[in-house]
Every structure is written in C-alpha cells, then in structure tokens.
C-alpha cells in the first residue's frame, strides 16, 4: 500500500510564500484562493516571543470529516490517501467547508480575476467553469503524481511526480512521499525528527506532519 503524506519542517520554513505562489500557478486558482499558504504566527508576549511560519492546506486526513458530511459522494479518498473532490458530483452545499477542521476548503461562485471582471490572456486560457459553485482544495497535485508515476517516476523525489509546492520550496521545508515505504524521504524525516499533526485530538489522522524541534 501507498499513503502519500507531506512534511513541513517548521525549523526550515521562512514564510516566503513561494509555495503559495507555485500552487497558484500550477492549479490556476482565482484571486485570494490559496490551496497552499503559510501562516505567520506569533506566540508569547514581548520580549519572550516566538514567530512561526506554518504551511497549511488540506491535510489529506485518513479519516476526513469533509468526506463524511458530503451528501453527493463528491469528496472521496484514493487508495494512496489523497482526498479528492469530483467537481461533476459536487452540489456546492458547503457542508464540507464547515466540517473541515483545517479551514482548507473554498468555494467560488462567480468567475473572478486579478483585475476585475475581464480575464487576462492567461486567466482566460486557464479559467475552469467547472470549478465554479463547487468545493475546491489542495489535491496534493494528484495530476502530477499520476502523470509522473505513469512514467515510472517517484513522488517526492522526481520533480515531475511531486506536488508543485514541494518542488518550489526554497528552504526544503516541504517534503512529500510515501509514509508506508520505510525508506522514503518522509519516513526517514519522521524517524529522525520530533513532529506533530494539527488537531491530533480529533482523530483525523492527517497526512501532513509538522517537524518541530523544541528550542
């Protein structure tokens, strides 16, 4: 079996938003829709302050609350763990957006573009009517993974088979791979580092691990 997961090393991430930008390019998301982004978080009080940059997005849970509430079976889970949305089945009810503990789902009802109602040449080329009025979120770049693995490439190792955000990360904070393969890069990272998962108490068993070395 394969289960794809992502790791984010909080010691490495500088919050530069290169992953945010690369995700927007790859997935042609409309303005203000960011399937991947990095939060800029402060903890503590002056002068004992920690400032942390935290990549967020769909956590590709093993037990995804969004899927359980989906009345149309649009949200599903692949054998490799990636949580998917079938835009043709989605009725846009938005239950999943409420159910997601990670605030990772979006819905855009009307076409919107960077500079008003008129799309640029790129936006016109890449605009997808099928994504209007339905839920959308990070896909772990499943298309890239499928195209890459079809060519015999390894997700997380070969850029052509790896999510765009991971490819783009200039701090090598984001990594991707098969957690079921004990020799994969993510398995090794998880073996060597302390880590946590977001809202672990909810039992969602996320496919997104935060590497975190307490100072």
């Amino acid at each position: 079996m394969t289960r794809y997961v992502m790791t984010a090393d909080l010691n490495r991430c500088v919050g530069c938003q290169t992953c945010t930008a690369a995700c927007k390019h790859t997935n042609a998301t409309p303005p203000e829709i960011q399937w991947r982004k990095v939060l800029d978080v402060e903890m503590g009080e002056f002068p004992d302050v920690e400032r942390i940059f935290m990549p967020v997005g769909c956590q590709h849970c093993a037990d995804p609350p969004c899927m359980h509430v989906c009345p149309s079976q649009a949200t599903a889970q692949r054998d490799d763990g990636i949580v998917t949305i079938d835009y043709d089945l989605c009725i846009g009810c938005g239950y999943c957006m409420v159910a997601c503990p990670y605030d990772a789902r979006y819905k855009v009802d009307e076409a919107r573009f960077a500079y008003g109602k008129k799309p640029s040449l790129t936006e016109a080329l890449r605009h997808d009517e099928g994504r209007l009025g339905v839920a959308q979120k990070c896909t772990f770049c499943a298309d890239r993974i499928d195209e890459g693995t079809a060519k015999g490439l390894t997700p997380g190792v070969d850029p052509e088979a790896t999510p765009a955000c991971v490819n783009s990360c200039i701090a090598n904070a984001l990594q991707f791979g098969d957690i079921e393969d004990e020799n994969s890069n993510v398995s090794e990272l998880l073996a060597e580092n302390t880590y946590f998962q977001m809202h672990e108490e909810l039992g969602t068993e996320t496919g997104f691990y935060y590497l975190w070395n307490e100072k």
Partner: protein
Amino acid sequence: MSARPETPVKNKKKVPTYCYQCVNGPDLLTVEVVDGIATQVEPNFAANKDHPAEGKVCVKPYGLVQKVYNPHRILTPMRRTNPKKGRHEDPGWVETTWDEALDLIAEKMKATREKGLLDENGDPRFAFTTGGAATPFYYAGTLSAFLGAWGPYDNSLGAGGTVKCYHSEHMYGELWHKAFTVMPDTPRAQYVISFGNNIDASGGVTAVYRQANARARGWTRIQFEPHLSVTGAKATEWVPIKTKTDGAVLYAMLHVLLHEHSADELDINFLKHTTSSPYLVAPNGYYLRDPETKKPLIWDLQINGPVPFDTPNTDPAIEGSFVVPHAIEVGADDETWTHTDTSVTTAHEKLKAHVRENTPEWAAEISDVPADTLRRIANEFLGAACIGETHEVEGRVLPFRPVTVVLGKSVNNGWGAYECVWARTVMQVLVGALEVPGGMLGSTTIISGPDWDRMANVFPGEDGFMHFPFNPTDKENWLQANEMRHAHKLLTPMVGDSMFSGLFGSTSIAWLRLQGRAAESWAKPQPPDVWFVYKCNPSISFSETSRLGESMAQFPFMVSFAYTEDETNHFADLMLPEAIDLESTQLIRVGGQHYFEQQWEAEGWVLRQKVVEPQGEARDFSWICNELARRVGILEAYNDMINVGACGIPLKTDSYDYSLDPTTVHEPDVIWDAVCKAASADLTDGKEVNDLEWFQEKGYKVRPFSSINWYLYPKLVDQGLRFELPYQERILRVGQQLANRLHENGVDWWDTQLEEYEALPTWKDLNKLWDNIIEKNYDVKATDFPFWLLSARSMQYAWGGNTSLQFIHEVASNVAGHDGILINANKAAELGIGEGDWMEVSSPVGKAHGQARLRQGIREDVIVMIGQFGHWKMPFAKDLKVPSLNALVPMHPDFLDGHGSSIDATKAAVKKVEKLV
C-alpha cells in the same frame, strides 16, 4: 477531479530564462507557454546540480506571468500634452508612435551634444537614473553601450541608493577585504551574531536555502533587532535591542575580547602576520616609519628592535610600549615628523585603549541589553571561533573559524555605521575569522574592479595592504571637477572611479542641491537637459518623497521607460513601453560569487529570452538603444562599445572574432547571437561555440568554479599582504587631506562629515544625535517623537517593481505587516489603538496613515512599515492604502555620514485617528 479543463492544446512548451529582480539573482527558471501565452513558472530543474540551491526560484518570479498581462501596462508610447508638471497636474497623456517619440528624444539629445556634454557648472547635461542596485542593467540589453557611446552622464539622481543600501559596508568592506557585500561562510559557519540583518527576507533563494541547512545542522544565530523580523524568527535567540545602539553593543563585545581575555586567547598568529596590529603608531596618529624606506615599523621580539613590517622571519610584538631611537612619521600632504627616542605602542594597544571604557555594563545602559547577555554572547563567539583548527579546501590547509558578525540595513549605513562595520570586522580579525573557511567573507567587488572576478582585484597597494582605488586627495592630483551633481569622487573619495562609482557617495546631496538645501558655497546645479528614468520610482523610494516630486517637476525633458503610470513618470514628457522580463533577450554572467550569498561552484552565462511576444508596442531595450544611437548620430561609437565588451564580454579577442560591423544597425538577436558565441568561446577556451539558438534551448552554460575562490586569505597570504585592520591610518590621512583641499576651496559645510575619517572610530550616541539634529533644524521638540519608525524587507516586493501586481499583493499579504503598521500590542493598548484602527504617524517632515497591526515581536518604542508603498498614482498599488516611511524620513545634510549616506528610519509620533475616507 482534474484541476484543469481538458481543452485541446496546440502547442505547449517550457522555455528557460532568468529572473534578476533583486541582487540575489539570477534565478534560473522555466516558463510554460501554451499557444503563445505564458501560463506558469517553475524552477529550472535541469540546473539543480549547478545551482547552489538546487535551481529553486524565489517567490518574485511567480509574478512575472501576471506582469506580462497586467491590463494597466503602458503599451504604446505616450506623450505629455500638459506642459505644467506637478502632482496635481494631469499630464494629458496622448498616444504617439515610436518614430515620433524617438525622433523627439534624438532632437533633444543632439541639441544637448551641440551645447556640450557638460553644463556651465561642469555637470553632465544628460542624466540616467535606475534603481535595484543596478540590477535593471540585466534587463536593459545594450544600454551600457549607449551610455558608453554618449560620454559623461549623471547618475547621481538616485532612486534610493546610498540611503537604502549597505553604504558603509560597501565602502569599508571593499577596502578591508574586497567585500562590497559581506556574508558568513554559511555552509560551514557555527555561530553568527546578527544586528538586524534580515537575510531570510533579503538574501534570495541561495541564502534562504543555505540558512535553512545551517539551522538543520544546528548552528547558533543571535539576532539583535528592535523588531522580530522574518530572520529573527528563525534565530536561536532574539535580543530586542534599543534602536541605533548596535555600536555600543559591538564596542562592548570588543571590550570583552580585548580586556577580559589575554592576547593568547585570540588568534595571535593571525594578528601578528596578517593584520596591521603590530604596526607602531607614532605620536601624531600616523604609522611610525623607517626613515630610509618609509615603510611602517613593527617591533621584532627576536631582535628586540624596530624593523620594517615586511622584514622576513620576525616575531612582531602585539602588545607593549617601545622606545624607538630614530624614525619618521608621515601625515597628510606629506607632512613629515622626525622622532628620536620616541615611546610608541602598537596598533593593537591603541585598539585596546580605544575600547577600555566600553564595558558590557556601559553598553547595557545604552542598549537595553543586559550586561550578562552581552558578555555571554561575546564569550560564546570567542569559544565558537575554534582558534587553532584548520580546514582543507582543494588540497590547501586553511584556518577554520566558523563565526561571523553580520549587519543589516540602517546599521551599516548612515551615522554610526563606520563604528559598526569597523567593530564587527575587528571582532572577526581578533579571532582570525576573516576570509577563511567558516568565517566572514566578501562576495562582490564593485569599487575596485569587475564584480565577476573578485580575486583579480587582490594585489599589493601601500604599506603591505591590498590596493584600494581611493580618489586622489593630495594637492597635485586632486580633481576639482564635480563630475556629477553629488560630486561623489570629490566629497567621498572612497567611491573609487569604476563604472558604478556614481551610484555611491551621496545621492541625497544631488537632490538637496537641486532643492537649494546643501553645499551652499557651490552654485545651485541646473537640472539635466535630458533625464532618462528606468525601472525605478524615486518619487516613492527616496526620502522626503513629496519634495522629490517638486524637484522633478522642474526638469525640462524627462523620458520614462514605463511599465504602468507611476509617481515618477507622472512628471515625464514621454513614457515608453519596453519589452519586459519575459519579452526580451539578454545574455549575462551567472555563478562564481556574487552579492549576499551567491556562492557557486560553477560559473558561466545564462540567457533571458523572449518567452512570449511583447505585448502591444513594447520594444526590446536593445532595439530602443539601437534606434537612439542611430538617431542621435552615435551609432558607430555605440557598436564599437558593443564590440569592446559593453554587453558583458568583448566580441573580438586574440582567440575569436564575432565583432559587428560598426557602421550598421544590428537587430537585437544578431547582437546577442554574437555575445552568445563570444561568451561560450571564452568559457571553453574556444572548444565550444554556442549561438543564440543553442542558449534559447539550453538556457545556460557553465564550467566549474573552485570554492577556494570564496576565500581571500590564501590569495592575500601568497602575496605577503595584510588586512588593513584594526588601525585606519589611510582613512585618517585621506580625511585630513580632503579637509585641507575643501578648506582651501572655501568649503566648510562638509566638516562634520570629515570628522568620521578617524583611525579608530569614536562611538556616537545616535539617539542623542538624532534628537539634536531634529531640534536644530525643525521647529519641534525631540520628545514629541518618542518612537523609532523602521522599515523591514519584504522578500515578495523588494526591488521587484511589482507593486502593481495583484498576485504579489495576494501572497505577500500572508506575511504580517504588509497591510499596515506594526506596533507593539501593549503599547497600542496604552494609546487606545486596537487591531485595524487607523493611525497617524508623523515625523518632523510629514504624516502618513495606516491601519494598526498589533504584534508582540516589536519593542514598545518602535513601529514598522514594511517595504515601500504610499503610492498615489500607480494603478492597483494606489488602492492598497499602505503607508511608507519614505514620506516621513527627513532629508537633510546633517543626517549624512562621512560618506554621504543616511539611514532609512526616522523618529516619529503616533496617534489614533478616525477611519480615513
């Protein structure tokens, strides 16, 4: 669940190119093009073995696709119809043709040439301004050839350089270790002390990548800064130092190293043989010299007597006082003293005495940093220096000293910066951690020679030190001509005489003189007859920006190469659309070592190419230069400049000849094809010649570059040279001679600046200095401005010229402070200011408004405005309602340091206001 519609695609390709939107470029990227339309940017994965950060690209290039298709672009040449210029005047833009526009420029430029290249004051009649630390030249095609063919031009009308740069680090860094910019040997460093150096936002891809690796490796980084920056967030320890007290902390650390440790605990061998520490200092402050050879003397412990510094096999004394029977001392203008039986000490002893009173307890009072913390960090620095250890690079055994002190902007420029850059470099020297593996390194030379070959600039100068091209200050050779409106070579002799020297010195002086506010004994300069503005927006990016617009409105003929309308081209007579990043062609050098952390083990050339056809009437800058050269009547000289190397490499050498016929116009592709061939031939010693088509397909070509070239120490030692530290005899002499020359010519308004030319810089209380300057020059009380208003680097925006891009705004908004003013949450509560409330920030010269963003990672006496905003004209940007500190930073001669720079900060007052309409 496809992310994209399955539309049939006729033609999809990935095109390699580069991004050079900041000094940390070039980033190597590919752009996906679908049916002729650019769609997305990716790293050039093919470069992952050659590039020091796996060929990754920064966030800014992802804005380039939207930049092409931005509906607010100027896509047709535009001519002003309203002769009245002013912020509130409508320029009355009308479309014109390239032909008409170029003819108009040619007419003005020909008339200028006929009048003479220099005006009655000796200032160039033609001026050219750009920004981005000259990175726009990586987009400007053959512009250097045009400027070279034209003759003298003025580039003193700065867009922010010398204020918004590392000015003192540039000057002194290059003097001391060929380090126009300074960095740790990050791959090997173990302990870094930073004073506001925001490298994780300013250092580009390679710096972020290497720093992340260093953190993963477990290095220590101590960050002194008043506001917890992106880089501070990643540091081991944040020390919230009081603003502008860095010098005190650095002096206290010197005190700890020199007075709380014996000389044996320092790198005594390095000090004796690789620095000026053993040079004997005579009673008037200059070196004690041998009467015969005039060489500086050292005290040789083996013979227990004075010998010239370069005597073989000596054991130089570092500490102690000595009586020298007979010697001379040579001061300014060759004033010579003869000394008999004089008692002298070493430069090292002078250094020790200089910081004797600067205890950690003294600095704690000034800086708000506990003495124990200062002492601990200084001792950790010494301990981490690994004195005695070695590291082998390319078979050569070198000292290994994995410690560095780095400085950030507004610490390493303006008043106090000399103290800071000097003290931190002396700290490096004391532990032998300068230009050796693990230690503090330079990466670029600009003042002393070609920026792509730093080692070529290491050769002997005076007194056993490296050569440095000070402009002459002696009576015989002093150049009285200003050359440019900021008189850079005259007022600030350290700027040298290179192609880029005009970008240094004091660009503030140029604007202040045009406003009649500086250099009162000199005639007020005339505005340039013709002014070109390229890829910059000084109305937004300089200081006291409202007055800058008033100055520009007086300029008779201004040509702006315009991307959108903005706050500077609002004053222009012509706006011309250039083919931008993804629309035009240029070949440039890549690799080697460059700027903040660009250290490669490869060097070569990379192509920027026409990824997509230019939009509208936008034209390749090389085409524009061709046409200007032809119409102005300097085509042959222009082509000659291309042939001799203005595009980065000569087209003809003894080994190859790709030179162009100088009498005809060559299309850009023809020019760059020749450059590609020359560059590849040079790179491979003639073994391979690659044309433009080859580079268009492959993107770049490199050969190995040895990492031994990252370190200057071996080159220095091989030539028997020493670092010119700690004592600054040459600075003292140059300053005194400059004072003599200026006084002989009736100039006394530069006297305060001349005080900075000290052999050992005196610590200054900069908070007091600011208060005094404010109260002296403005009708205000210093106590009315209790805050320091600071800026912080925005990686997403810096130097990108991308403020009009929605895409960049969107992603940058995830980083705190991009949409308002950062203020300490507790302080805000005290002032009745809540999150999102509107604040008015005032300084002695202006007011700005923005929304409060409450944070804990900021001192209570500091507010921060990130980046440079405050737009009132640029589409999209003007609706952001984000303030800029540039409108509030006063421009006044009193703020200019000895080399003409001032800081990018101001004292300020804060109050809550009702929401602005």
